């Protein structure tokens, strides 16, 4: 079985400060890991993914994520938060055995204050 956990329901950060949104995963095979962002009343937008190779993955809007196999984590980071980054963030996993669908975490609400 494959799953992800997002331990924080909400993350608050001041504009200009670095942000981290946490995600841990559990898979049978090797993981493919994804981050999506959802703005209010919108669909999910793809941010970045880890497939293989470099553990540090760079994505849209200045976001990056670090894959850590020993800690089974894939935390989302950004060096300097913007108020416009305030949204709901989802981590998702697909493993190399089970193929098709993505399993999503519960989501973490990010609030960036001016």
């Amino acid at each position, binding site marked *: 079985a494959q799953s992800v956990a997002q331990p924080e329901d909400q993350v608050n950060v001041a504009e200009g400060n670095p942000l981290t949104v946490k995600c841990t995963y559990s898979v049978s*095979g090797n993981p*493919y890991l*994804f981050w*999506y962002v959802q703005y209010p*009343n*919108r*669909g*999910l*937008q*793809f941010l970045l*993914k880890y*497939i*293989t190779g470099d553990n540090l993955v760079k994505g849209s809007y200045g976001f990056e994520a670090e894959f850590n196999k020993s800690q089974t984590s894939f935390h989302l980071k950004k060096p300097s938060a913007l108020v416009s980054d305030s949204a709901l963030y*989802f981590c998702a996993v*697909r*493993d*190399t*055995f*089970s*193929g*098709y*669908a*993505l*399993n*999503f*975490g*519960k*989501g973490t609400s990010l609030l960036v204050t001016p």
Partner: protein
Amino acid sequence: DARVTQTPRHKVTEMGQEVTMRCQPILGHNTVFWYRQTMMQGLELLAYFRNRAPLDDSGMPKDRFSAEMPDATLATLKIQPSEPRDSAVYFCASGSIAGGSGNTIYFGEGSWLTVV
């Protein structure tokens, strides 16, 4: 700009009525997913199709929900009869997925359903 298109965007209906949601996947994508989002349950996978064949509908209440893909450009999700507990956002997503691949899936804007 290729995108997944869903209709209707918003629907308010009375309990007991039939609701049909439609999805046009991105051209060339072979796998289509239906997810449901609620505050309590988060994102749940309802069903998905690959090359128009249903692969998994284990997340879908079978007594009232049905999903079909009559052709490569249209997927439908039907609820009959609808109940207030079906109120949620229903997302369609598509991707060009091979088994165990890292390919991305792309979401539509959702159909926001309220059953009163």
